[in-house]
């Protein structure tokens, strides 16, 4: 297998790309399209406005505005859309990408750096510098070679990053973004979220064991210890929210905060939850499992190329999920003053093109408002999490365990007793002073 390294030449590179495109086109037209039609022949197609949604009808929506909105309306309420696009994966991934972008810019401002403020300045103008850095990073990660160390447990090595992304996505599906906009509205949503968060250290330990290397191994063990230090404060700090709202369903917890946010009465719990979620995320003061100056890159030492990319994607999706969970538990979820109109454009009948522009029938004022407030609060939380990274060094594992067990657990219990006192003192809870009737 000894092949000499070839020099890179631009001409042959372009030629190879053209050839690739040619073959893709051939395969799509000759195989894929007929296959799609064959499948669609057997699949029962749904009804949209009394018409069967055939592929032809679907394609016609591009040119006919009167058909666009009903079809869109239909698509938006499908399960697939929820899972794949809006409260689900794509929304989370977009926020994750925005987080990376913001993290760069924000930390660069903080650290007097100029690097991340330049890529893309010519193309997009000021304000978007650094946006192309994301694209470049993604392309770089995709096109890098994946190296699996000798002696590694290959199936687990391949499966771990996939499981990481999937688990992160599974947390996202529990988050209610707007009234009715949640992928899975479960009665025990909070417990399920904690259960899924428990997967991540497990995946890390599996991956570190599979790498067959020393530094990942220590990193995996450290991840386990981090779980041990912060899982109980994490769970207990949310307990006072559960006591106040009387429900484990995240949507109901949000509704319970319609008149006041829980952070007003549970500031200590909120603090504990915030610190624990930082530890859960392995961000800077608690990034022991990947402490680069001690154990090279911790459990990520043997990752390369897209395996690393997927783990990073999963990490940032997880960051979104934890920030969103904080918003749902303490900051009143989507609750906020109504700033969006009920309807876009002038009232009454509208010409088709204007209907399309104002999203007639699709746009719903309160929902847009909820999404806006939820996203804004989530970004606030993400900013707070990034801020911590800019001003703190890493801590040591014994300090971490000590903090978790001696301080945070006690703090979360203190706030639980405050919540109990408020309930039995007749301030909160059913029939309390502050409970809306």
């Amino acid at each position, binding site marked *: 297998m000894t092949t000499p390294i070839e020099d890179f030449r631009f001409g042959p590179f372009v030629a190879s790309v053209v050839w690739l495109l040619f073959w893709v086109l051939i395969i799509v037209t000759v195989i894929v399209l007929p296959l799609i039609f064959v499948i669609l022949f057997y699949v029962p197609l749904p009804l949209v406005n009394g018409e069967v949604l055939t592929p032809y009808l679907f394609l016609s929506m591009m040119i006919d505005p009167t058909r666009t909105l009903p079809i869109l309306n239909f698509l938006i309420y499908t399960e697939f859309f929820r899972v794949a696009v809006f409260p689900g994966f794509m929304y989370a991934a977009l926020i994750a990408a925005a987080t990376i972008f913001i993290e760069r810019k924000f930390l660069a401002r903080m650290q007097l750096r100029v690097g991340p403020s330049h890529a893309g300045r010519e193309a997009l103008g000021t304000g978007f510098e650094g946006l192309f850095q994301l694209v470049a990073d993604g392309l770089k990660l995709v096109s890098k*070679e994946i190296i699996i*160390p000798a002696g590694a447990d290959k199936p687990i090595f391949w499966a771990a990053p996939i499981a990481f*992304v*999937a688990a992160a996505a599974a947390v996202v599906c529990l988050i209610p973004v707007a009234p009715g906009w949640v992928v899975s509205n479960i009665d025990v949503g909070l417990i399920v979220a904690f259960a899924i968060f428990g997967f991540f250290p497990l995946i890390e330990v599996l991956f570190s*064991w599979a790498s067959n*290397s020393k530094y990942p191994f220590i990193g995996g063990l450290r991840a386990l210890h981090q779980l041990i230090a912060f899982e*109980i404060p994490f769970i207990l700090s949310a307990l006072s929210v559960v006591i106040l709202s009387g429900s*484990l369903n995240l949507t109901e917890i949000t509704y319970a905060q319609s008149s006041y946010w829980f952070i007003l009465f549970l500031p200590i719990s909120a603090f504990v939850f915030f610190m624990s979620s930082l530890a859960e995320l392995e961000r800077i003061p608690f990034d022991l499992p990947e402490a680069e100056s001690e154990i090279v890159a911790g459990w990520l030492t043997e990752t390369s190329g897209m395996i690393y990319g997927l783990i990073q994607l999963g990490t940032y999706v997880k960051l979104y999920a934890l920030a969103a969970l904080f918003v749902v538990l303490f900051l009143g979820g989507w609750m906020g003053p109504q700033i969006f109109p009920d309807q876009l454009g002038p009232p009454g009948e509208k010409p088709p093109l204007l209907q399309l522009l104002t999203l007639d029938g699709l746009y719903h004022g309160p929902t847009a408002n909820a999404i806006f407030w939820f996203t804004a609060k989530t970004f606030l939380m993400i900013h707070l999490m990034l801020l911590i990274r800019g001003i703190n060094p890493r801590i040591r594992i014994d300090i971490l365990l000590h903090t978790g067990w001696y301080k945070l657990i006690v703090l979360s219990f203190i706030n639980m007793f405050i919540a109990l006192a408020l309930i039995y003192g007749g301030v909160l809870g059913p029939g309390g002073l502050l409970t809306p009737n």
Partner: protein
Amino acid sequence: MAGETAAQFSPIIYMLGFGLLVSIPALVISRLISPRRRYNPVKFLPMECGQVPSGEGRTHFMMQYYAYILMFVVFDVMAIFLYVWGVSLFSLPRSATLPIIGFLAIMFAAMGYSLYLAGRKGIW
């Protein structure tokens, strides 16, 4: 009923599946377009900071802090048990809080004692 309860959880399964749907092609595409140069076996050695690896990567290795691990096993269950009480607090009579306070007191005493012992032992 059981089926309905299970069906509540089906979106999680969809979401997991979608996560796989996104990440597997990413890996496959990456594998397809990235170079694969395998003529240097040293490249595939486990990371050892530029040295030839010595010793096993997977060994009997014990962090010193297993006092916390033992406590975790007990108190994690306790924490979840508290949830069962906390979620039904409003539907319980007020007198039901007293046993829970007693339970917490016992648990706190146990935790305090074990933390005290762990601290006195120093290095584990």
